[in-house]
């Protein structure tokens, strides 16, 4: 009796990957990200060496020109370094840059900016260790160009 060797053609079965644990991780990650969702349209990249002061304010920021000054008195506008805080009442480099931004805003939305006239918003991000004299220079320079609605960006204090 011949033993017939039956070569059973095994059907290739697809390996099942158990993705339940991966899904668990993703759901937890999703919950965490939902919690840290930012409803405001202000996108802020903090400059190096800048610590924000704490505040109990809960007003969300809005999109506007961002001026940052870190603890080394380095000046940034819209994430671009433009120099350092100078002596004197006005900061020439800041004035020049703000004028350019103002012109660009007027070109992009002339009707909207005509209504604002000289009451434009400016986000001021200062290091907590700076003094009022530095803050005053920034406000004075911004006001000279027409940015008179100062919005000081702070960190939530819980």
């Amino acid at each position: 009796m011949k033993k017939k060797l039956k070569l059973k053609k095994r059907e290739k079965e697809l390996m099942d990957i158990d993705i339940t644990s991966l899904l668990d991780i993703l759901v937890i990650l999703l919950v965490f990200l939902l919690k840290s969702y930012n409803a405001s349209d202000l996108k802020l990249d903090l400059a190096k060496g800048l610590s924000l002061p704490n505040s109990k304010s809960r007003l969300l920021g809005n999109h506007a020109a961002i001026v940052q000054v870190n603890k080394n008195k380095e000046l940034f506008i819209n994430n671009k370094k433009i120099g350092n805080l100078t002596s004197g009442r006005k900061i020439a480099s800041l004035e020049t840059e703000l004028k350019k931004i103002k012109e660009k805003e007027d070109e992009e939305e002339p009707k909207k900016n005509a209504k604002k006239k000289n009451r434009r918003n400016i986000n001021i991000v200062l290091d907590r260790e700076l003094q009022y004299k530095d803050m005053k220079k920034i406000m004075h320079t911004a006001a000279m160009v027409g940015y008179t609605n100062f919005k000081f960006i702070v960190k939530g204090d819980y």
Partner: protein
Amino acid sequence: MTTRRKSKKVEKLNLIPILDAIFIFIFFLLMSAQFIDIYQVGSDAPVTSTLTQEQEDKKKPLNLSLVITKNYILVKGGMDSRVIKKIGMTNGDYEINELKETLMSLKEKHPKESTVIFKPSSNVKYEKIVALMDTVKEFHKKVGNRVAKKDLFKKIVFETI
């Protein structure tokens, strides 16, 4: 004779589309996530306005101002800027509770007033000014399990910028 039982195949739920949706959702949330809670405290440049005779004849304005130095705060009011209260310091911090009480009593006498003028010295630290801005804007009071919020002087103007 034996009969073959057909083994029931258990239908497994296809999780791949759910996984795709979650991945895209996570990407979107990562782009808009903010890991430091940032907020804003507003202040406007001073705007001058002239009082009409009618307005002048009505109740005199409070004209509240805070002279902030490194060691104390002077709460001034009235058209003659007389000193209402001097707030000292304890352990390097201003006596915030005393300032709050003073502001609350002023607010009770002048409920329609909402402007305060800040006059800090050049050497006052920015973080102290922000803390004072928080103090003058609102007052938080615990009432049982709830925290009641009361507006004080929401419009802050810095003098001589």
